[in-house]
């Protein structure tokens, strides 16, 4: 029993902190609700520090092997925390500006992180599903959080309906797997597949449905239809959060499932994900090219990034899942950074709307913001020496290690295509003349978030070891 408690200690800690946040929210004055967010940041940092796994290869199972706490879970916990911290800082001004500055925003986001942690730590499908729903419900709320905005309303409802549907599909698939193998525990499922193979239609059917549910969560093509509208409609800092954390959680949980339960049949599902990866990358990139709205472009690019991450899953080796963990960490900084900056620019009135034309001539009047945006864009495109390159490099290493050369080639060609639309933002900022004059006012919190993200994106190539060592010690 004691061991079981230890195995979910980080989650317990987070839950206590989450409840504390609710108390703080009750006590906080109406105009001081941002404090809830700051407390949330402090709490999540505390939880991170308190739950560092004591040694490499640390692995502690709990509740009859339903859940596990190890370096792998910790690596993903780091990603969620980065996402939470940056998005919260990015949200403060954004919410104030729109008159929706409520404490529950930060609390819901905080609880979604707990759901994600359960997804990654789960070694049992029911626990995974519980985590998934906790995360998803929080996300539906956040997507529709700006109730005064029609687009945000649409995002919330769309996400909710489609999300609930996909959860249903996932659950349906789960029951088939349960029916065939007689268990929801990963290692028992693995045992069954090892002896009986994937010959029976019910397990194949079940797995395909589960994969479809998973593909929905990471917005892989052809299960992506909800994504552009939801990312576009959600409040900008939420969009940043949504493109990173839930995706990382879905990957983290799914890798754990595939590496334990699905390993005996890896050659079978590799092809499925390879097709998914190619479709996702290519579609996301091609459609992003056609966008004239930067936020929407980032939404489509978020789809294509899920495609790159899928390459790591296809590789089905140590390099692959480490690559995904590393990629999500780096992606948290650059993508949330870009979204936060977008929010900042809009809030300050530096840009009228998110159209490309609004960015014209930005470099002249706001050289530092433009430089930050340039750094995020080139980092997302994967141009060295910026951090995004490290992530891509590791992903392609995984593919080549697994000898899936064709997928690696499609991947790099796609990242060359992606360059075009990321570059367009810089073209407008640096090479074109401004369209209109605007007055700008200054606010600090989001600026800090942008600053942190920029510095990390810049320095990660110089000091990549920090993150690489964390993922290097991971074992599933």
């Amino acid at each position, binding site marked *: 029993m004691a061991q079981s408690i230890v195995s979910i200690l980080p989650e317990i800690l987070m839950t206590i902190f989450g409840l504390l946040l609710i108390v703080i929210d009750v006590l906080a004055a109406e105009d001081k609700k941002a404090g809830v967010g700051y407390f949330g940041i402090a709490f999540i940092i505390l939880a991170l520090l308190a739950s560092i796994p004591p040694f490499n290869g640390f692995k502690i199972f709990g509740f009859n092997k339903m859940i596990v706490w190890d370096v792998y879970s910790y690596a993903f916990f780091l990603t969620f925390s980065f996402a939470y911290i940056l998005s919260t800082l990015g949200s403060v001004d954004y919410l104030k500006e729109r008159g929706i500055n409520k404490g529950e925003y930060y609390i819901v986001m905080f609880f979604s992180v707990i759901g994600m942690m359960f997804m990654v730590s789960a070694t049992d499908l029911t626990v995974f599903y519980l985590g998934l729903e906790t995360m998803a419900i929080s996300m539906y709320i956040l997507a529709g959080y700006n109730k005064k905005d029609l687009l945000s309303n649409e995002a919330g409802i769309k996400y909710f309906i489609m999300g609930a549907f996909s959860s249903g599909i996932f659950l349906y698939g789960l029951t088939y797997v349960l029916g065939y193998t007689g268990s929801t525990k990963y290692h028992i499922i693995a045992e069954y597949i090892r002896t009986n193979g994937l010959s029976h239609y019910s397990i194949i059917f079940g797995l395909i449905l589960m994969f479809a549910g998973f593909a929905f969560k990471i917005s892989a093509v052809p299960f992506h239809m909800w994504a552009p509208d939801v990312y576009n409609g959600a409040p900008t800092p939420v969009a940043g959060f949504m493109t990173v954390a839930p995706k990382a959680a879905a990957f983290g949980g799914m890798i754990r499932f595939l590496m334990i339960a699905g390993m005996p049949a890896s050659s079978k599902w590799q092809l499925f994900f390879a097709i998914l990866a190619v479709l996702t990358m290519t579609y996301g990139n091609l459609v992003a090219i056609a966008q004239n709205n930067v936020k929407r472009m980032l939404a489509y690019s978020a789809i294509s990034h899920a495609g790159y991450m899928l390459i790591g899953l296809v590789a089905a080796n140590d390099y692959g899942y480490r690559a995904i963990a590393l990629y999500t960490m780096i992606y948290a900084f650059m993508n949330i950074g870009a979204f936060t900056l977008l929010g900042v620019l809009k809030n300050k009135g530096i840009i009228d709307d998110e159209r490309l034309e609004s960015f014209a001539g930005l470099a002249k009047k706001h050289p530092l913001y433009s430089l930050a945006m340039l750094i995020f864009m080139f980092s997302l495109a994967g141009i060295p020496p910026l951090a995004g390159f490290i992530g891509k490099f590791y992903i392609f290493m995984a593919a080549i290690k697994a000898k899936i050369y064709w997928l690696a080639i499609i991947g790099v060609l796609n990242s060359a295509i992606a360059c075009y639309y990321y570059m367009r933002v*810089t073209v407008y900022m640096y090479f074109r003349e401004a369209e209109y004059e605007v007055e700008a006012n200054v606010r600090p919190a989001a600026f800090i978030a942008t600053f942190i993200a920029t510095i990390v994106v810049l320095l990660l190539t110089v000091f990549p070891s920090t993150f690489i060592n964390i993922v290097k010690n991971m074992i599933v």
Partner: protein
Amino acid sequence: MMGNILTILIFFPVFAALVIFALWRSGKATMWAAFVASVIEFILTMPLMWNFDKSTAAMQFVEKYSWVKAWGISYYVGVDGISILMVFLTTLLTMISILASFKYIGKRQREFYLAMLILEAAIVGVFVALDFFLFYIFWEAMLIPMYLIIGVWGGQRRIYAAIKFFLYTLAGSVLMMLAIIALYFKHGQLTGEYTFDILKITAASAQYSVGFQTIVFLAFFLGFAIKVPMFPFHTWLPDAHVEAPTAGSVILAGVLLKMGTYGFLRFCLPITPVASVKFVPLIAALSVIAIIYGALVAMVQEDVKKLVAYSSVSHMGFVTLGIYALNQAGIEGGILQMFNHGIITGALFLLIGLIYERTHTRLIADYGGIAKYVPVYATIFAIFSFGSIGLPSMGGFIGEFLVLVGSFKSLSNYAIVAASGVIFAAVYMLWMYQRVFFQTPNSRWEGIEDVNVREFIYLFPLIILVFWTGLYPETFTSYMHESVRSLLEHVNTVNIALK
């Protein structure tokens, strides 16, 4: 200090850029500070040249620190006889082009000079990196400042040219990244040591199968051929050269193109020698096409800058032909020609920029007889035109001569055709010179200023160098003898071993 001179050379410009960024707000102050920084950087190159031991092919001034242990990546730099001249060329031309931009760059001066310094750091990094990961980072990092330089301070169609330049070169090098990773795993598989160390990966090249070498070679080849640029990958070059501001053109032609041929020397030949030998006919054919085609297209240009841009395609054809002659004379000629082309074409772009500042036209037809108004300018232009044609006593001659000597030995049919390129060069350069300088004087240009002191200062070292290489090339070739000899030895050994 000599112990980490290379690190200083890479990071001094970055450091200088940061300091300048923090201290000065005005464009003018930044301009002078950046110039001083580039002069210091150039002076720092001198001890490197003097202390270089010419009697060995080993890497010198080596520094190696573990960087990302988990992947076997280290910060590993060093120079040999092939790269040292390129470092010299980079720091020299950066200094000169910063001085040449003083008048030319009118808007957003701060950003321009900072971009130039960052660009310089990245290029030096490319030439001294001995770790594949480090090399690739510098190779790509250089794109961002160059992209901004073309796109912000370029001519009419600058946006198009900047995007084309960026995407074209990027698309070429992404496959190279996959090849690098493939080499990493191959080397790890064969020797048990997972490393990005270029020298170790090179040393094991006899163990790479022919099929593997061919694939890696093709991936590398695409990246380098685009950078050189070889025919038919050259289409980005005229756009980028013509639209870039003078400093951008000088760096592009003078240094960036050399990154491609340097890649052939440092990676294709030593790491995939068997595949390199196999593809000699293809590369030689493409080189000869580039020589003739570039020259013919240059002949019909109406824009002086475009003419020089196309002549670059032709001249770089000589370099690749020389390298793939695979003998001492050919490769040394190729390297010397890389150096000469940097000096001569760099100077020609500077001269074109200089007159453009005064006349705001680059069309040959608009000039006509300006020798009467700007005699000093006409003289200097004549010197570099002759240098470009390859007149004996000037650098261009020695380079082309060595290349032809080398290629006659092993690729005689190609060499015969290539030799006619020299004649074409004379045709387009002299014809252009005649139309610009010697026709009936166009009164429109009466009273334009001749070369002033500042301009003479930055042209003078180039004039010296073009004669120096022409009259006593040994100063420069002596650096490369040993490195080229050992390179050829390695290529032969591996080829024999795998036959």
